[in-house]
């Protein structure tokens, strides 16, 4: 599963990033590395960017980059939210 498949409100853990070195380093800058937990905040329509919560900060990602980030969904995320 990749990040762009996550629905709003769902949480997941990054498992791998399959992207060239440059994009990967920009992701490292923002704390997006394997092991990081993320939550989907908003999905902009018409293939627009995604807004993610990473730790306590927000990160906007283009769809292409987002589909290169593999994740593992956290199943009990709905309960976490409350």
């Amino acid at each position: 599963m990749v990040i762009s498949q996550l629905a709003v409100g769902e949480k997941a853990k990054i498992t791998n990033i399959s992207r060239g070195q440059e994009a990967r380093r920009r992701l490292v800058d923002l704390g997006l590395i394997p092991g990081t937990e993320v939550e989907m905040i908003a999905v902009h329509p018409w293939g627009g960017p995604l807004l993610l919560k990473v730790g306590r900060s927000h990160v906007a990602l283009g769809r292409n980059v987002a589909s290169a980030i593999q994740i593992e969904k956290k199943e009990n995320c709905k309960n976490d939210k409350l």
Partner: protein
Amino acid sequence: MMKHSDGKEIIALVGQPNVGKSALMNYLTGIKTVVSNYPGTTVEVLEADMRLADRCFHVIDTPGTYTLHSDTEEQRVTQQILMETPIDLILNITDAANLDRHLYLTLQLLDFNLPIIVVLNQIDRARELGITIDSKRLSEELGVPVVPISVMLEEGLEDLRQAILTQRERGKPMCFSPRVETAITELRSNIRLRIPDIDQANMHTERTLAIHLLEHDQLDEYIVKRYPGLESVVESLQHEMAKGYGYPDCNDCFRECALCPVMEQQHPIFLTCLERTERARTIARQSVKAEDHRRNTPAEKIENIIDRPLAGMLFLLLALYLSVKGVILAITGTEELVTALMNPIEEWLQNNIALSAGGFWRIMVRAFIDGIVLPFSVVLPAMISVYIITGLWEDSGLLPRLSMVLDRLTRLLRLPGQAVIPFLLGFGCRAPAVLATRIMSEPQERFLVVALLSIVVPCAASLGIMAGVVAKFDANILAIGLSMLAVFLFLTYFLGRKIEDASLELVMEVPPLRLPNLKNILSKTWLRMSGFFSQVLPLMFFASVCIRILLEINVLQVLAGLNPVTLTLFGIPGEAFAGVAITVVQKYLAPMVLLNLPLTAREATIACAMVALSFPCLPVSILALRELGGKKFLQIFAIAAAVPIIVGLILNLLLPV
């Protein structure tokens, strides 16, 4: 390279973007800050002197950077400053509410083995968010002093001053896992063999250099080139590390991993990066406590609404509209005021000097009016209002949200979302729009937007007078509009090809919403205005003297004698063609020339389209020159010369006689 600082102790402020570095800089040093561009970059570096307890300090505010991997201009500049300046103390500004992510940079800074203070800024916001930080514990873990402050509430600043005066203990570099440490040690001995003069060479310390080489960033390219033997050592060490990490398929092509089929599937983040991130998270976990159940702060509640796609778009478009309206209001408002003030002087000069004196004085008087009155009535208010409003967008956290919301739309034109702001401003006056392109980071994108602004986008003044021309001669407004659209699309396509796809992909932090600090915005505006009197004003005066001389020696009349040529090529009389050249001075002067000529509807259509798509006016040219540099400006000017000629030729062929 940096300005020195005889005998003063040098302090470097280092931190991520949006962490409140410049606000702290302002607080420490007051308003006497100097902006300097680091050679060859567009990144601003701020410097100022500070007195504390009778000691003199020189403070350098480095550009905001997330890490020290030298992938972006900001990172390279920051790294260069840290390496090349004899720094006595690093102030590492971190965000108390996001400590784990900020500690990555802290750990990298510790590698430099310099005295360092970790400043936990925005401690008030952390409190609001229910976060408590055990700064004693944090200080023990990092081995350096930690000072919590809030610049906004002026909290903890006395402690910080004390720490600045006393802290001179060097930070201890972080320890990696044994495997990585072995690689580092091996590389260090190799470095010592190949670069014996490392300490004098003003480069990284050995350890930092070794770590950097293992992480292989662009800056190290030149080191690798200079010391050829190093590369194979680094490669084999990286290979060892990757193998040990559970990637046995790695086939020794670690450097080309972007192209490697094996690595495309399973590429490790460089081991050092990964371990550093983990260490940062462990330290943060040990010293930060966060409440689980708490109410959202008011700012968070607004954020929750604005960060929804539809609501956000409506809100941001409204804010955008108000901003553009505000700038236009400021310009039209002050233009009247300044003209009213300058008019008597202008008239007196006209009557007493221009009439009685010879050519030289006539030139100087006209040049004074164009070169001094114009900057004060148009450029100055435009600059001030644009700086204040862009400052508000930057400091409130709305700007990244705008580019996120508009990303889809502008991507069609291969432009980032931020490009909308200069375009909208351009319809008011293009001079402030050129300045507003500063919010775009990629030089190629800036060039494209400035080119479009200079050539295609009509300002309010020229639009109004062109409407007058269309009405008077019954010109074909559809033909004019379509040619403008065609040129816009063609230029975006043609110039946008060079913009790389990767740079178009959005990977951007969206900072929390904040109430902007007015003092901070005003001092930022003041700083950026400093160029007006030293650069814009003299340049504009000089340029208008030159143009007046051209007018005085009847260059335009010569053009008017070109009737046969212009009529066959473009289907317009020579005087109308001269009007196109006049746009160099002021875009709205050109349609005024047309108004005074006896033109047919067809002639007016072609002339109007050519005028609309020609040179940038004087203020725009000067600002573009200042913002982009001579080479890029010349390119724009060349395109601006070619476009009206091509448009005129094509329209002359297409339009029925």
